[in-house]
């Protein structure tokens, strides 16, 4: 059992009681909600005649269902309109702060909370969305929950949970040029497998992690869940603190000093005990692309799609399914695979630094005629910053469509969808069957820079050929 890790410390700090069944009752410091997984929870509160216990500790935004082409109200899609109206009504009734479209702070919940300074070290954070692990980048313990648990947090600000084990993933050296956080996390998931993290929190550590910016760290923690780990985190450091400083909800003045004194002590002890430790060399990671139907089925850009014989017995069943669904032949190269759609956005890679990197690749170039390319900023703030920097214009000049903020084609709950068996090069997090809105649509996950390169060439490309 782990001892003295950041996870242990934050867990113990928030433990309210040991429940009769043996699980722990954990206080949730910050609860984030959105339109998709909250309406039934509010409904259940009403049925049980309960109130929201700490309305100030829940914050709402709208992201999954919002259209990215025309956000004027009412939305064209009646169901989407009904969902945003329900959230508006619930927030008003329960006095929950709601960052709605046009507030200047709306966006994907996992982009917005860090931007507002809501996400802070040492907190427990829960949200009805599996990518809540993103917030672990700040040294918080953050995890996704289902709707019944959203109800429990609303009603009690606590959850019944079993403590997770802790696996440290130590990343030695540095990422090479043209290789990004997305490549590193895809690599980790490939090496460990998509279910290795079940029952674990992942602590990402080592020189390669220290080197990453806060936004890159969010990309890493965001995809912990794709490796099966409900929670992923990174010990906070100076970068963490300076990212938070001066944000809207960050501690101010003498409170900042108090916060800093506490945060500086918040980290895994040098001699803390882990349930497991994995070490890998980040300098060996290359631009990585998924070829299959799970985020673990990835290869580096110059590799061939694995033959059945090259896979472990446990991976063969899903590999067979993947060859068939993707119409790929075992042994074929992933490089030069033609793509139909290029998508840059999502809670994984829809932040300003992601757009900057992609813009650098796109500048002065044109998107291939065969490709539909679109960029969806992660939040209104990201969109504003991009405009101030002229990034939106670089995207538009290259032939990308520039959209309004939202989750968009990461999960295709709005009208941004693949058609038929189109192949998409996507900066999002899941390549599941049908994930991007068409039951036969095919998704290749990669970094935003690699998506930009694919958009220009109309096929999967090595972004290192575009940058000096």
């Amino acid at each position, binding site marked *: 059992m782990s001892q003295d890790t950041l996870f242990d410390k934050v867990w113990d700090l*928030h*433990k*309210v009681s040991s429940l*009769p*069944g043996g*699980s722990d*009752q954990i*206080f949730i*410091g910050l609860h984030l909600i959105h339109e998709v997984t909250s309406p*039934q929870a509010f*409904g259940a509160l009403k049925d*049980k005649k*309960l109130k929201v216990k*700490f309305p*100030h500790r829940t914050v709402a935004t709208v992201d999954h269902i919002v259209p990215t082409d025309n956000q004027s109200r009412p939305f064209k899609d009646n169901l*989407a309109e*009904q*969902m945003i109206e329900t959230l508006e009504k619930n927030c008003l009734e329960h006095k929950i702060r709601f960052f709605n479209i046009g507030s200047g702070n709306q966006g994907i919940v996992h982009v917005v909370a860090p931007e507002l300074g809501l996400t*802070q070290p*040492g*907190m427990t954070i829960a949200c009805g*969305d*599996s990518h*809540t692990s993103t917030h672990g980048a700040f040294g918080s313990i953050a995890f*996704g*929950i*289902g709707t*019944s*648990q959203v*109800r*429990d947090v609303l*009603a*009690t*600000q*606590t*959850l*019944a949970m*079993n403590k997770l084990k802790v696996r440290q993933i130590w990343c030695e050296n540095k990422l090479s040029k043209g290789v990004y956080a997305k490549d590193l996390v895809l690599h980790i998931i490939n090496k460990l497998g*998509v*279910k290795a993290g*079940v*029952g674990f929190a992942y602590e990402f550590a080592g020189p390669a992690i220290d080197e990453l910016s806060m936004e890159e760290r969010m990309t890493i923690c965001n995809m912990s*869940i794709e490796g*099966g*780990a409900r929670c992923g985190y990174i010990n906070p450091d100076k970068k963490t603190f300076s990212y938070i400083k001066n944000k809207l*909800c*960050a*501690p101010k003045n003498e*409170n*900042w000093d*108090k*916060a800093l004194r506490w945060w500086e002590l918040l980290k895994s002890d040098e001699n803390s005990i882990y349930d497991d430790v994995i070490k890998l060399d980040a300098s060996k990671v290359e631009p990585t692309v998924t070829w299959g139907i*799970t985020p673990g089925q990835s290869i580096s850009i110059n590799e061939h799609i694995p033959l059945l014989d090259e896979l472990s017995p*446990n991976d063969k069943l899903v590999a067979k399914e993947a060859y068939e669904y993707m119409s790929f032949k075992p042994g074929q190269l992933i490089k030069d695979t033609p793509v139909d759609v290029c998508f840059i956005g999502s809670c994984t890679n829809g932040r300003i630094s992601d757009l900057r990197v992609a813009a650098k690749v796109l500048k002065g170039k044109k998107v291939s005629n065969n490709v539909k390319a679109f960029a969806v900023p992660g939040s209104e703030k990201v969109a504003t910053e991009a405009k101030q920097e002229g990034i939106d214009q670089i995207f538009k000049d290259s032939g990308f469509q520039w959209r309004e903020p939202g989750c968009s084609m990461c*999960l*295709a*709950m709005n009208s941004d969808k693949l058609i038929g068996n189109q192949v998409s090069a996507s900066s999002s997090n*899941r390549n599941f*069957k049908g994930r991007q809105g068409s*039951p036969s649509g095919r998704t290749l996950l990669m970094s935003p820079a690699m998506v930009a390169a694919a958009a220009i060439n109309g096929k999967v490309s090595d972004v290192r050929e575009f940058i000096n």
Partner: protein
Amino acid sequence: MKSEFTSPIGKISNMNGQCISLIGNDIDTDRIIPARFLKCVNFDSLGESVFEDDRKTLKGKHPFDLEENKNASILVVNSNFGCGSSREHAPQALMRWGIQAIIGESFADIFYSNCIAIGIPCFTLPKKSIEEMQNYCDNQFLFLEIDLKKSLAKSKELNFNLEIKESSRKMFLSGEWDATSTLLENENLIEKKFNLLPYVKFNTKLS
């Protein structure tokens, strides 16, 4: 799709029913219920859409479409079932189709918690036993009587010692799987904990 749906309430200790086998590893919640069906403010109509895209692809040959499975209530799956999105809509859709318990090699964490929270016990068994069950289901009906107290599943010919997290087992037997009221019992402790949290004192309050 069964006719009348009622949510489970209170203590859960026995489940008897026919098994339905679904073969495959890493079956994610997008497949269990595609995202377009999440555009709803209640769970009521999800049952009919469970595995919608997989079922369409298999044109009537999906286990959830086979006539002989229409009364099944115990789902038998392989490893990492329910990975991906945290959508509770996935177990809600399974439950509304008629599933009351799931036996598998392993489950994704969030899916597992969601099942517990809505009253679907999830049991694990080694790969070999799951395959034995699934092979049996291929050829004939497998009816199981599950005794949660003993963690035992019995049929005419086969017996299985099921595994389930001890905390989950206790919660079903006591009825505390429906956690809200249990959590609320500690109201004083919750207030106390809140007041002790360092960040509560230095945070800038949202107005």
